[in-house]
């Protein structure tokens, strides 16, 4: 149902926060986090998840397998 941010790789660049159509991303404990309850994987908003597309570090915004995939 959601993406998550690998905290140890996050550079705190803030780029994803502004792009998230669901305002699911916020700063917490020195890194950025995605609220899984709000994340829609950008389905219905954009062709690709915005946080993944803008993140300057590969494999930092990734699918969180703790949740089932989002269905619109």
């Amino acid at each position, binding site marked *: 149902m959601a993406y998550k941010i690998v905290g140890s*790789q996050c*550079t*705190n*660049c*803030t*780029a994803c926060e*502004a*792009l998230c159509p669901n305002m699911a991303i916020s700063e917490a404990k020195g890194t950025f986090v995605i609220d899984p309850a709000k994340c829609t994987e950008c389905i219905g908003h*954009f*062709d*690709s998840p*915005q946080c*993944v*597309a*803008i993140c*300057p*570090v590969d494999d930092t915004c990734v699918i969180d397998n703790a949740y089932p995939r989002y269905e619109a």
Partner: protein
Amino acid sequence: MTEAMFEDSHSNGSDDSAVDIADVMQKMAEHKGCGTEGGSGKASCGSSGGPEDMPPEIWEKVKNHPCYSEEAHHHYARMHVAVAPACNIQCNYCNRKYDCANESRPGVVSERLTPEQASKKVLAVASTIPQMTVLGIAGPGDPLANPGKTFETFRLISEVAPDIKLCVSTNGLALPDWVDEIAKYKVDHVTITINMVDPEVGQHIYPWIFWENKRLTGYEAAKILTERQLLGLEMLTERGILAKINSVMIPGINDKHLVEVNKAVKSRGAFLHNIMPLISAPEHGTVFGLNGQRGPTAQELKALQDECEGDMNMMRHCRQCRADAVGLLGEDRSAEFTTDKIMAMEVNYDSAGRKAYQEAVEAERLAKVAAKQDELDGLEKAGDMKILVAVATKGHGIINEHFGHAKEFQIYELSQTGAKFVGHRRVDLYCQGGYGEEDALETVIKAINDCHAVFVAKIGGCPKADLTEAGIEPVDQYAHEFIEKSALVWFKDYLDKVESGEIVHADRGDAAIRQGALISEAG
């Protein structure tokens, strides 16, 4: 006047005949009830642009801007505030992951500031360092990918410190969307990093761009980027906003192509081109660093800069500083102005004191230019000969640094037409822990190996002998005198010796550009 009027504390006093900047600084410090380090700033010089080869309206805009004017950066400081962390493209020479407080290169920064914190920081710095005339937003991401924070910062600063010049650096992708906003806040200097005008070249530099909510790659990405950059440049030129172009020289990828870039930006009204060497080392973790892409040698860089220098000014003093650097170019005082420290500071913006300092600087600049003029006669016998010399200086256009303390050398080219600043060479490993004295000297010799002489305020016996053996003449007889004047006096003497047969003129080899990150002294 041969004696410099603006010297640091260990020098032998100042001339009392002209405006004394140290005196103005001291008065300001007393007024504030605090000490001052005034005048100890280390700097060097760059774009040879001066009043004689620039339209007056441009000179008026750049004369106090350390990043734009060779003259200015001896005297004026800049600061960057890191309010813009997000970026909309990826470059193969950039890695945002590293931030060590001791590491100095573009794209890294120690702390992010809010616009309010940034505004307070600017006031704190401007009140402490009267040379501070320029506020830039350079990242650490792309300022125009963070437009809200960037323009709010400009708005706050223009309200409280209207005399500070505002500038912004961008990769250009978002530039066309924000040119009107840039004009609105009277940001009259914009730097665009343009590394190519051909997407075939660009696809090897930019792995992706973020465009219309998609990540685009390859040729398509580079094509959009170059179109947006050139459109943005044209829009700035239409509005009379000065545009400087930064280009990173990447051997084998865009080195030859940068001549085309130079023509393209010149024809669209850019007034200054700054070609910088690629900084590339595996420990930076950049794509280029990891795949072994090398940076240019000193002579490769100079040859390209010379080739592009026609009727366009080339900037050669860029220090490729961090997005949160504070101080004169080549120094970084950012550690004095951390958020904790500035929030605790009593800030009293001293407009009158700043004006007095800046007027004193103008007098000093004129004295330096006048000193050089006297030595321009008698250079005809140089013929086609051009030689390089290195200078150890802490700034103010004076030979005032000890050889062993120098963290960089300024390079001047001496020829029939005079002494021209053509670059600087970092040697900051010298005199630092972990390296033996021998290695350190070797680093310096590699860095200035293309020079015939090195001018210093003072030098020990051992390095003197080693330099001489390497074919670089150590010159300490012009300590605390003006650089250009002294270099020309020495050059004429050199020409006389060549003429009389006392010495045989020979060309020097190439020199290496230091690749590691600059280690900051502040801590």
